[in-house]
C-alpha cells in the first residue's frame, strides 16, 4: 500500500487527461466510463488504505516520492501520508465524489460540454486528493490551488452566460484574498520553523508556545485562518459561495458543499497542534458562530432552491469552525463528514428537481412535487431531516456534539448563537421542503412565457403533466446518500480520530468530553427539540397557516427583516461600495496617471523622442561625402593620439 498511495490522485488525473484531450473524439459511453473509473478506482484504493490505517496498530501510511523543491535551506519533500484524519477525508472525497460522478452521467446527459465537464470534475478529484494526502503544507497548497482552479472552471462551466463567468471570477478573486493570507502564513512558518511537514509543525508549535515567541505563532495562526475563511466561505469572505451556484448542480454538491469548501476545516484539523498553540481559536469560534447565524438568517428568505442550500452550507461550515474553534477538531471533522453526506444529498435532490422541471430553480414556481417526484421528495426529506438535526439522523449527532463541546468549553454565548441557528436551520430547511414538495404546483401559472435559464437557453415551464422522475442513474446515488444521511451519525468519527491519531492535539482540549455522559443527554434533548421546534414552525408558517408569513411581513420589524434577509444584508453591496469601487477607482487613477501619463508618455514616449531629437541633430555630420569623413577620421586619430601621449607623458 505504501507505494500505491500516489495512484489515488493519479487515477482521476488520468481520467482528466483522457477526457480532456480525447473526450470530444470518443463516444459518450467511453467518456462516461473513463469519467467514473478513475474516482471509483481511487475510492477502492482509499478504502484499502483506510483499512490498513484503521485496522492493526493504526500506523500511518507514508509514501515519499523524493524532493519536490530543494533550494538552499528550503526543502519541500513530495510526500504523501494517510493517517486517521486524511483517511476519513479520503473516504468522504472518493465515496461522495464517485456517487456524484455517477449522478452527473444522468444530469449532464444532454449537455454539449459533456467530456469537458467530466475532465474538470476528475481534475478536481485529483487536486482534492493531493490536498488531503500531502504531508506538508506546500504540497497541500498545490491541491488547495488546484481545487480553486477547478472551482473557477466549473462555476463558469456554462461560460456563454456572462453572469456565470462573473460568478466564477468572483469566486476566484475572493479566494485570492484568502490565499494571500495562506501564503504569508506559509512564509512565516518557514521563517519560524524551517520545515513544512505537519507533524513537525504541530510538535514544533507545542514546543514553541512555552517559549516567549507566541506572537509569531499567533500571526501564523491568523494568516492560515484567513486562508481557511476564503476557501471555506466564512465571514468576511463567504460572499463567493452563493454566487458559485451558477455552476451545474453536481458541482455545487461536490465542490461547494461536500469537499472543497471543507478544506479549511481540514487545514485546521491537520494543524490542530499549531492552532491550539497559536491562541487564535477564540477568533475561529466567534467567526464560525457568527457565520452560522448569518448564513441561516439569509437562507430564511431566499427563493432560489440552490441559494437556500448555499447559505445553508455557509452556515453549516460555520458550525464546523465553531467546533474547531472550541478545540473539538474531531467533532468538527465529524460534522464535515455528515454534512458531506446530507448536503450532497440535498443538492443532488435539488438537482433532480431542477432536472425534472427543465432547469427551473425558483421555488415560487414549484410546489406539490411530492406526488410527481415521490422518490426525490423522500430522499430530500431525509436530507432535510439530517440537516435540521432531527433526532437519530446524521446531522443530529454531529451538530449536537459541536454544541455540546461549545457549552462544555465554557462558551455560553456562542452556544446560544449555535442553538438559535439550529432552530433557524430546521425552519428554513422545511420552509424549502414545503415550498418545493407540498401545496399546489405553481409552475404553469405563467405558461408560455418562458425565460432564460442559467445556461442562457430559452426554457419553457414544465407542464405539470410532463414532470417525471429522473433516471435511476441519478436516483441511485441519491438513495445511497440518503442511507448515509440516516445512519452516518452512528459512525464514531471523533472517537476514531481522538483515539488514535490526535496525540498532537493539546491535551485537555475537548478530549475528556467524550462518551455518553449526562451533559450529552441534555444536549441531545435540547438539540432534538430545537430541530422539532424549527420543523413545526416551518410547517405552521408554510403549510397549516399560510397567511401567517404575510401577516408577519406586514409588521414593520418583519418587513425590515424580510428585506434585509432577502437582500443578504446588503453585504455584497457594501463590499462593492467599500472595496470594489474604491479599488477600481484607484486602478483607474493608476491607469491614467501612472501607466498612460508617466510610463507611456513620459518614459516610453520620452525615450523615443529624445533619441529622435539627438539623431536629427547628429545626422548633419553624415554628409555622405568622402572628404568630410576622412577629415573627421584624421581629426579623431590625432585627437586620440594627443590624449594618449598627454596622458602617458
Amino acid at each position, binding site marked *: 500500500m505504501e507505494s500505491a498511495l500516489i495512484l489515488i490522485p493519479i487515477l482521476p488525473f488520468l481520467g482528466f487527461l483522457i477526457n480532456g484531450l480525447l473526450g470530444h473524439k470518443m463516444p459518450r459511453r467511453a467518456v462516461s466510463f473513463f469519467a467514473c473509473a478513475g474516482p471509483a478506482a481511487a475510492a477502492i484504493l482509499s478504502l484499502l488504505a483506510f483499512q490498513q490505517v484503521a485496522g492493526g496498530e493504526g500506523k500511518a501510511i507514508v509514501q515519499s516520492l523524493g524532493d519536490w523543491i530543494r533550494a538552499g535551506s528550503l526543502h519541500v519533500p513530495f510526500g504523501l501520508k494517510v493517517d486517521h484524519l486524511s483517511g476519513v477525508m479520503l473516504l468522504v472525497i472518493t465515496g461522495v465524489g464517485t456517487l456524484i460522478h455517477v449522478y452527473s452521467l444522468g444530469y449532464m446527459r444532454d449537455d454539449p460540454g459533456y467530456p469537458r465537464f467530466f475532465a474538470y470534475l476528475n481534475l478536481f478529484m485529483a487536486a482534492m486528493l493531493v490536498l488531503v494526502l500531502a504531508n506538508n503544507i506546500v504540497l497541500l497548497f498545490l491541491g488547495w490551488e488546484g481545487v480553486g482552479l477547478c472551482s473557477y472552471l466549473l462555476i463558469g462551466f456554462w461560460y456563454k452566460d456572462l453572469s456565470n463567468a462573473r460568478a466564477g471570477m468572483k469566486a476566484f478573486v475572493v479566494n485570492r484574498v484568502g490565499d494571500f493570507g495562506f501564503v504569508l502564513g506559509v512564509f512565516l512558518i518557514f521563517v519560524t520553523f524551517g520545515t513544512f511537514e505537519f507533524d513537525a509543525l504541530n510538535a514544533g508549535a507545542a514546543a514553541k508556545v512555552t517559549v516567549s515567541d507566541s506572537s509569531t505563532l499567533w500571526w501564523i495562526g491568523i494568516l492560515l485562518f484567513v486562508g481557511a475563511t476564503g476557501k471555506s466561505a466564512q465571514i468576511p469572505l463567504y460572499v463567493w459561495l452563493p454566487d458559485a451556484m451558477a455552476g451545474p448542480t453536481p458541482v455545487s454538491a461536490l465542490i461547494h458543499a461536500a469537499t472543497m469548501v471543507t478544506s479549511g476545516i481540514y487545514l485546521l484539523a491537520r494543524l490542530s497542534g499549531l492552532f491550539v498553540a497559536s491562541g487564535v481559536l477564540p477568533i475561529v469560534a466567534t467567526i464560525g458562530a457568527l457565520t452560522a447565524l448569518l448564513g441561516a438568517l439569509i437562507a430564511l428568505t431566499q427563493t432560489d432552491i440552490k441559494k437556500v442550500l448555499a447559505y445553508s452550507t455557509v452556515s453549516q461550515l460555520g458550525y464546523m469552525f465553531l467546533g474547531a474553534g472550541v478545540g473539538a477538531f474531531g467533532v468538527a471533522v465529524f460534522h464535515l463528514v455528515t454534512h458531506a453526506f446530507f448536503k450532497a444529498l440535498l443538492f443532488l435532490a435539488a438537482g433532480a428537481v431542477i432536472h425534472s422541471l427543465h432547469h427551473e430553480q425558483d421555488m415560487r414556481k414549484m410546489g406539490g412535487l411530492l406526488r410527481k417526484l415521490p422518490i426525490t421528495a423522500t430522499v430530500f426529506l431525509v436530507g432535510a431531516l439530517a440537516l435540521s438535526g432531527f433526532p437519530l439522523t446524521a446531522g443530529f449527532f454531529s451538530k449536537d456534539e459541536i454544541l455540546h463541546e461549545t457549552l462544555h468549553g465554557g462558551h455560553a454565548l456562542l452556544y446560544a448563537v449555535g442553538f438559535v441557528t439550529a432552530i433557524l436551520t430546521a425552519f428554513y430547511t422545511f420552509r424549502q421542503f414545503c415550498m418545493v414538495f407540498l401545496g399546489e404546483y405553481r409552475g404553469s401559472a405563467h405558461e408560455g412565457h418562458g425565460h432564460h435559464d442559467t445556461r442562457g437557453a430559452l426554457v419553457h415551464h414544465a407542464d405539470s403533466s410532463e414532470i417525471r422522475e429522473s433516471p435511476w442513474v441519478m436516483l441511485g446515488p441519491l438513495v445511497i446518500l440518503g442511507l448515509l444521511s440516516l445512519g452516518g451519525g452512528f459512525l464514531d468519527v471523533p472517537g476514531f480520530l481522538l483515539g488514535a491519531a490526535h496525540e498532537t492535539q493539546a491535551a485537555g482540549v475537548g478530549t475528556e468530553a467524550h462518551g455518553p455522559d449526562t451533559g450529552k443527554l441534555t444536549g441531545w434533548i435540547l438539540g432534538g427539540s430545537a430541530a422539532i421546534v424549527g420543523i413545526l414552525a416551518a410547517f405552521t408558517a408554510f403549510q397549516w397557516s399560510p397567511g401567517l408569513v404575510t401577516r408577519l411581513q406586514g409588521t414593520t420589524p418583519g418587513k425590515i427583516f424580510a428585506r434585509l434577509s432577502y437582500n443578504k444584508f446588503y453585504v455584497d453591496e457594501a463590499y462593492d461600495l467599500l472595496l470594489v469601487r474604491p479599488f477600481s477607482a484607484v486602478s483607474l487613477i493608476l491607469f491614467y496617471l501612472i501607466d498612460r501619463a508617466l510610463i507611456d508618455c513620459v518614459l516610453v514616449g520620452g525615450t523615443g523622442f529624445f533619441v529622435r531629437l539627438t539623431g536629427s541633430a547628429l545626422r548633419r555630420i553624415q554628409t555622405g561625402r568622402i*572628404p568630410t569623413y*576622412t577629415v573627421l577620421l584624421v581629426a579623431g586619430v590625432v585627437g586620440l593620439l594627443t590624449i594618449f601621449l598627454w596622458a602617458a607623458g
Partner: protein
Amino acid sequence: MTLSLSFCLHLSAAIFSIGVYGVLTRSNLIVILMSLEIMLNAVNLSLVAFGRAFLTDLTRDPSGPQVFVIMVLAVAAAEAAVGLSILLAVYRKWRTTNAGEIDLLKG
C-alpha cells in the same frame, strides 16, 4: 655612415604626413588611392627601420618585422586591386572620379 633609427622614423613620419595631406586635400579618387599607398609605404619604412635597429642578426631571425613589410605589400596590392575596381564601377555609374560629388551615404 649608417642611417640612425631616429632619422628613419622622422622620414617615415614625413612621408606619412604627405600621404595624409594627399588624402585630405585631393578630390580625385585615384590620387586619394595613390596617397593611401604612400601612407602604407611610410609605415613599411618604419617597420624596416625598427627591424634593423633591434634585430642585428637578420640571418638568424628572419621572422622579424621584415615579414610584416612583405605582408603589407601583399595586402596593399590586393587593396589596390579592389579599390581600383570599385573606382571603375563608380566611374561607370556616375561618370566622375571626384570624391566630393559622390554623397550617396548622406544621412
